[in-house]
């Protein structure tokens, strides 16, 4: 069992393209990539603006609020560590697509609520939680009650 307990939580394999996003997340900021040419916001971070193909990309702080576009209660996560967590607690992880008020969609997790409380269109706000067993902060979302 001891070896199974040491299975690491999956963390991003950070590259230059998403490094600023994760650095800001560690400070409690949720940032979106913004095209310096056409002004469009995008998520996830990419090497170019997918609208105008500009490589002049900056970052803009997001309000971190939005609505749930869709969600799923995950009973069988792919990676061993989250899968073991679900098996141990019997509580699914709520994986969701969230439309931020800035008009971009984010995939993340809805935390601190029961699966039956989650509804399409529900308002949510970003929060930051350390990935289990690490001090790496992941931006997640809570229902605005």
């Amino acid at each position, binding site marked *: 069992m001891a070896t199974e307990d040491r299975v690491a939580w999956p963390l991003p394999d950070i590259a230059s393209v998403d490094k600023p996003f994760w650095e800001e997340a560690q400070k409690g900021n949720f940032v979106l990539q913004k095209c310096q040419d056409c002004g469009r916001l995008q*998520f996830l971070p990419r090497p170019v603006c997918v609208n105008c193909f500009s490589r002049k990309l900056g970052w803009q702080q997001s309000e971190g609020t939005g609505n749930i576009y*869709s969600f799923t209660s995950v*009973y069988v996560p*792919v990676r061993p560590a989250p899968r073991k967590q679900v098996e141990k607690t019997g509580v699914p992880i709520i*994986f*969701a697509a969230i439309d931020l008020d800035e008009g971009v*969609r984010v*995939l993340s997790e809805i935390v601190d609520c029961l699966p039956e409380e989650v509804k399409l269109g529900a308002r949510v706000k970003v929060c930051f939680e350390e990935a289990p067993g690490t001090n790496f902060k992941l931006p997640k979302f809570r229902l605005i009650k």
Partner: protein
Amino acid sequence: MQREGVCLVGYGELPNTLPEAEGLRSSFSYLPYLAEAVSLALDNARLKKKDVDGFALVRLAFPADTPAVAEELGLELDWVQGVDCGGASAVLSVRRAADAIQLGQIEVAVCAAGIVRYRGHPFRGLPAYPTDNFMLPYGYGGPNSSFALTQQRHMAQYGTTLEQLGKIVVSFRQNAELNENALLRSPLTLEDYLNSRTISSPVRLYDCLRVCTGATAVVVASERKAKQITEHPIYLVSDAEKTNYQVDKPTPDRTVTGFATLGEELFSKVSREEIDFAEIYDDYPIAVLMQLEDLGFCDKGKGGQFIEQHDITVHGDFPINTGGGELSAGQAVGAGAMLHIVEAVRQLKGEAAARQLKKARTGLVTGLGLLGFDLPIMCAAAMILQRG
């Protein structure tokens, strides 16, 4: 595009089997399986190895380069192609081969796929930036979760029901009962479907296919060559593809796939009404339903009603996945997609035995592949085949 002078002349398929518990667990275990499928396909086409001058391989399942696999099969080639578009690779391998044949580069191409699975070694696909960095840290459940997000949205937006989706699964199983190569052949009821456990809500156990061991191959040939073999070649009538539909949209509509852009090109020569049966890529029932909508067999959002109104079994008015599809026949990863083409050619040649359709002159085959960050699918591909 509309095709001239390209035919499908043969198919080979091994029975799908559950992942093995024991065995050598070698990376190269697929070779004899692949060789047998290719051999069966050439026998079915009444061609010899020396007739083959092109070889395409569905890459998803293989750690090997395509020329290296061809070397193992002893193939000297004028054209070689590895296709790495996930579940769309099988249809696209035929499409690429058709290009080469139409250009006169080759006369006969074999398109092959196959994999050997071992228990306890789940297939995880290749590392991908969106999945690894922005999905897996959040408990993502793989394709089950991606299609769950799409299905949840489709149900809310259009009123699609679990009963409608369940009818797809149950009908395919009925078809699989007549297919001895299918992995899952025991009867399945709508009640079984509705009562199956939730994997990633609203996706439940019987929405998910079983990854298995298998191998498949088809032979594509010029019309000239095909006519030397048979009086009734199966013609490739038209084919189309779209990759990354809606990728530039910051909030894409997850209920619409790239198939929505293919209809005009696909049905330019043969109309939807002329389609006798469809072999539709079925990694999930919601995927089948969305393809029917997006290809224009019904209005957007009315896929559930279409399923209610039609009998989609081999005995029905609109037969879909006459061998049980991947949901019942099993998905040998890349080989899974090829089984749709194999079944279409089998039906069109009139060789489907107990499940042979009374009318099988024109068939539709689709393939969809790969899941990105926030698109329902990445690659959409489809083709129409017709008995000459």
